[in-house]
């Protein structure tokens, strides 16, 4: 394990942790059926300090993913701007130094590539491919992130041979291998079973400790948000706005046992009561929730 730590320290030193600044961002989608454009994001203003772990929570369909992809640059905002480390973001294709990577909701691995091949993918296309990394350098990185995500013995496996949890680790490793300064995670654990999810959360925290970076993490799960984040952004629905930034008072270096502590429960209730209003509003009925949404007891 010592070799891993030394290796990780060496990698970490080279990763900057830029701030993310979203200023006056609007996103409208035109639609053939409706004359009015759909407003997905309305005047979003947020600043996430460098090196912070920020979660975004909010009702379903409130534009969380849209915001994430706007920050990434894949989706251009209709109005406003996004700056990462003070630099305006551009489409990843046009970014010479791509410093952002996405961990997708569904693992979305390439089925014809092995685990190792998938992890290397981000280095073989796009701006990073044009940096002409040596094959040895790519292999080094792949090996490093295989180790960091505990996948070393599965390097030659194909995605269809892996469990859902392992696929998400590959998904994470693929993003990490590009050494992003900003890691954007789109509900990466939502499809996993509860136990696997908890373990993955802990693992993600550990990885973020060894390699600090700015993380933006979308989730529906309040416990997940509280457990992982420094800041929790609460979004309202249709049009999506960031209505509150909740600063998590829990100290860092958490482990799973914190989830049963009094303070954690209290914060969760507090967070829920804040979110509940938004969800009820978005449902437009204010009545009891009938679709099986997970609610804290």
């Amino acid at each position, binding site marked *: 394990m010592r070799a891993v730590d030394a290796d990780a320290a060496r990698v970490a030193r080279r990763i900057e942790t830029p701030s993310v600044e979203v200023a006056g961002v609007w996103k409208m989608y035109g639609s053939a059926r409706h004359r009015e454009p759909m407003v997905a994001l309305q005047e979003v203003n947020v600043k996430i300090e460098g090196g912070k772990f920020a979660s975004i929570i909010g009702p379903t369909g409130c534009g969380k993913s849209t915001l994430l992809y706007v920050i990434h640059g894949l989706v251009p905002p209709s109005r406003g701007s996004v700056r990462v480390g003070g630099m305006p973001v551009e*489409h*990843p*294709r046009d970014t010479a130094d791509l410093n952002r990577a996405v961990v997708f909701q569904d693992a*979305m691995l390439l089925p*014809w590539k092995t685990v190792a091949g998938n992890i290397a993918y981000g280095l073989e296309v796009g701006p990073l491919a044009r940096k002409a990394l040596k094959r040895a350098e790519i292999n080094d990185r792949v090996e490093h992130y295989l180790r960091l995500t505990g996948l070393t013995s599965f390097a030659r496996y194909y995605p269809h041979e892996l469990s859902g949890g392992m696929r998400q680790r590959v998904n994470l490793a693929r993003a990490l291998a590009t050494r992003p300064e900003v890691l954007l995670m789109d509900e990466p654990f939502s499809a996993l079973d509860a136990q696997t999810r908890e373990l993955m959360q802990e693992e993600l925290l550990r990885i973020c400790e060894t390699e600090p970076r700015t993380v933006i993490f979308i989730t529906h799960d309040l416990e997940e948000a509280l457990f992982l984040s420094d800041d929790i952004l609460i979004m309202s629905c249709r049009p999506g706005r960031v209505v509150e930034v909740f600063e998590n008072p829990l100290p860092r270096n958490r482990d799973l046992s914190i989830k049963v502590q009094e303070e954690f429960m209290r914060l969760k209730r507090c967070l829920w009561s804040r979110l509940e209003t938004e969800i009820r509003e978005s449902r437009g009925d204010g009545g009891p929730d009938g679709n099986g949404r997970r609610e804290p007891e």
Partner: protein
Amino acid sequence: MGPYGSTAGKIEEAKAAPRRGYLFLGVLSLVLGLVAWQIIAQFTNRLFFVGPWETAKTFVLLLRTGQLQPQLWLSGQELFYGFGLAALIGVPVGLAMAISKGIEAVVDPWASILYATPRLALGPLVILWLGIGISSKVLLVFLGAVFPILINTYVGAKNVDAQMKRVAQAFGATRREQFQSILIPGALPHIIAGFRMGAIQGILGVIVGEFFGSRGGVGNMIFAAAETFDTAKMFVGIAIFAVTGLVISFALQKVEKRCAPWTQTLPE
């Protein structure tokens, strides 16, 4: 290996046993079929029906006397050139249709019309145009093979998961890189399936072409033998086509398994 390792091993064994059993069943069915064929042949007029043994003997005889080789060579060439041409044109055009709406709009109606046209009906026309040399057969093989290949390639590339393209875009892949790293490998299993269907259609093209006009070939041999009631020779010709189709189909299935391991059934 966890505490369940040994159990897992046992399950594997238990699964392997019936699999071997089914293989045995398949072979048994084949052998019984051949035996039945032979028995029926014993009780029928040799002028109309010959058994597997007679067919095999005739096959060897035709090889010995050197009658079969030129026919095999000619039909083989017809199939090879026609199919090769179909692959060379079908795959790029299919891919082009998948990535360009314009090309799709231009080619799609023609591909649909020609695919729906029974290409066997074109046989006499093609012979009329190109004569009884090899080129008319090559064209018929081509016409048979090109549409299954083209349409499979097109559908395969078109259906490559849009999310997969999004992954590529998120990593900043250019259109060219998306094409190479997502579209081609994603469409590959469909392309190979298209080859398989195309090859079968191509064999039909050989037979039809040689029926309508040819100086030789295995199909021609069958029709010539029919006119002289040389039934055993006909059976040899039919068997050759059947085995060719089988071998090509089987080989391409192997290739597909190689190129696209994920389309196979999941390992337990």
